[in-house]
């Protein structure tokens, strides 16, 4: 049985028809009475909704209202919240709603933004990176932050890896360090990025405690050369000498 048939609908049903049909069926299949049948019903409902929304998405147009002026720098209008009226016990609501602000790509250049983010991550301490992320006014927008996550991963894959501590801060801030079907497609990339960063090792910008400060104990001196390099250098010198000799004799 197709999900639409389960709800007694034809395939061209719209969202409100799907919901009404689900509500009708739910009265016969309550979650507390028949869990198995309920789960099947709910899955059919979710599939129908997904289908309806996908097929409608092509035709949708968005009308956005700019709230920037209202929100200003600190993004705060003076709130119209009335003093509580305790006289009544029934819920009454106050305040005002404003149509949602959405993403405006003309105002926000995500490429430039990500470039800036990566520069901050490379050049600053973990605390500074964290503060920058938290305080960035554009990152307060739920929508913008969501839309940036996949772009961020793509950008990180193109660029030299970050130090693991910095990478983890960025991943945590964009909630990319958790398991969820919504970010499942990004998870292999996230795992690779972490593996590269881990292979890159510790952040050398931080000072490290040296328990044994004898010079030269850790590996070679910067000017020390391997035997093969010595051999190559000698051959090079010999070649040069031969060239000079040949030039002189000519």
């Amino acid at each position, binding site marked *: 049985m197709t999900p639409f048939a389960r709800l007694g609908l034809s395939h061209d049903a719209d969202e409100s028809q799907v919901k009404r049909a689900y509500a009708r069926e739910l009265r016969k299949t309550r979650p507390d009475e028949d869990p198995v049948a309920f789960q099947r019903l709910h899955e059919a409902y979710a599939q129908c909704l997904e289908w309806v929304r996908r097929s409608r998405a092509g035709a949708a147009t968005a009308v956005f209202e700019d709230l920037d002026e209202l929100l200003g720098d600190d993004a705060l209008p003076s709130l119209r919240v009335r003093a509580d009226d305790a006289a009544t016990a029934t819920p009454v609501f106050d305040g005002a709603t404003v149509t949602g602000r959405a993403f405006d790509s003309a105002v926000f250049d995500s490429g430039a933004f990500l470039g800036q983010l990566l520069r901050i991550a490379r050049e600053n301490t973990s605390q500074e990176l964290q503060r920058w992320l938290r305080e960035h006014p554009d990152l307060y927008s739920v929508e913008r932050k969501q839309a940036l996550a996949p772009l961020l991963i793509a950008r990180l894959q193109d660029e030299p890896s970050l130090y693991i501590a910095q990478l983890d801060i960025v991943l945590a801030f964009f909630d990319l360090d*958790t398991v969820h079907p919504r970010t499942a497609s990004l998870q292999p990339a996230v795992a690779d990025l972490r593996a590269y960063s881990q292979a890159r090792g510790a952040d050398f910008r931080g000072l490290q405690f040296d328990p044994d400060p004898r010079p030269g104990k850790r590996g070679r001196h910067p000017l020390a050369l391997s035997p093969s390099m010595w051999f190559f250098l000698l051959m090079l010198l010999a070649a040069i000498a031969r060239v000079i000799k040949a030039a002189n004799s000519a």
Partner: protein
Amino acid sequence: MIVGIDLGTTHSLIGVYGPDGPRLIANALGSLLTPSVVSVGDHNEVIVGRAARERLVSHPQRSVAAFKRWMGTDRVTALGKHRFRPEELSALILKSLIADAEADLGHRVEEAVISVPAYFSDSQRKATRIAGELAGIKVERLINEPTAAALAYGLQQRDGGGRYLVFDLGGGTFDVSILELFDGIMEVHASAGDNFLGGEDFSQALLDAFLSEHGLAASQLALTELAILERRIEALKHELARGSEVAFELSLAGQPRAWRVDEAAFARICEPLVQRLRAPLERAMRDAKLSPSQLDEIVLVGGASRMPLSARLVSRMFGRLPLRHVNPDEAIGLGACVAAGMKARDESLEEIILTDVCPHTLGVSTSRETHGRYTSGIFSPIIHRNSTVPVSRVERYFPTYDEQRAVEIEIYQGESPRVEHNVRLGMVSIELPPKRRDENPIDVRFTYDINGLLQVEAVALSTGLKREVVLEKNPGVLSQDEIRERLAALAAIKVHPREQQENIALIARAERLYEELLWAREQLQDALVQFRGALDMQDPELIAHHRAEFARYLDAVEAQS
């Protein structure tokens, strides 16, 4: 009749669903809010509510508040000669609420719907159910707090429903839920939260800021001084939510201390806490697959949502202004009453059906092979967070090696891809026949029911052997025998009768003022002796007269402070 109860971190409410909809019931002192505070008196009798809150100042070692935060743990609080677990302290609150409801309704109350934070884990929910049992009631259902608030709000809006985001910042916990109401169906799309973030933390941040500005440490102060300071800070926080600048003065460690704070300074002090509100909001939106413009309303509930910084954060994140419940303290209690009416299949609610989600991801620990090397401790989710419940899902796994004779399946709850960052819930092991690994599949089924209980079943497909797990006994959960024992112990504890509550609250208030106001000590002492004398006469009329006088006197003293 089933009652609805909001068992909160700072205060609790009880009510019923009646012919006129949800109705909250006042306690013996005439207030709908009963402070969730327990104190033990000089004769080891238990005092609950407002009197107990006053005694936090006068008897700090015999009083305790905010114990909801310890639910699901085995932490023990010693008060006088008693030792209480968190579920027992909660049971004492529930008993007091039930006594108020029984006095109002005129009959016994035996069943209840109790609200819990949406982000409460399995062991915290179990502890809440046990608290109900210890209070002598059957907990018919646990309802998530933001869902309750949405029920109370959504049913008010009869015009076809809509999508709501409920921002619930209570005394001790923060929850976000996204719900939709249509055709009598209340569907929860997603919940997220933080179990250790609430109004109490904002008070603590203010207290810490005060102490550091004055070069003091909490350990330098006497318990009573600290309790007085906490009361002042609490009052200051409430005033800040209304006015722009607040000041107070008090004497601490032998010196007068003054403090002046405005809203901007408050916001600065609390910035780290405000930051912690962001992630649950973002996660709930993402899991609900909605954009802010698809929400009809953003509703603020919970006492701590009165702080202007809550509304400010929501407007920055969503690009719109939220609505605030006119009485954010009562929204969840009212919703719990609606849920109780639904459970009792009240006629006017017969048509409403609620579906909720599981707040956490549940799965098992696996290992993965990459380039011939095994990495273990990789979390493999089976039930994803924010799946609609009840839900049952199965995943197939294989043993790590050929000829492996048994597997141990470890069960975890959490969001990290690495199990060490998640919570281990238990284990099931299953024997296998000696075979090649890819011919030896195991099916693991997770079933999560409407009350938030998880069942795990493993089947070795090549033999049909089946193993079920009873999740390990959590350190925070009592056994049935222990419950019976504690129930008897709690029943034996002396509690003052309801009609004495007012007298006890007045005495506790006088004792608190005695600690706070040095200049009035002698007078207060005299008044207390007089009132206690009147109580000894056991003449109701005389007591009522003295009580009115005493209350007037205390009002006057407090007004002068």
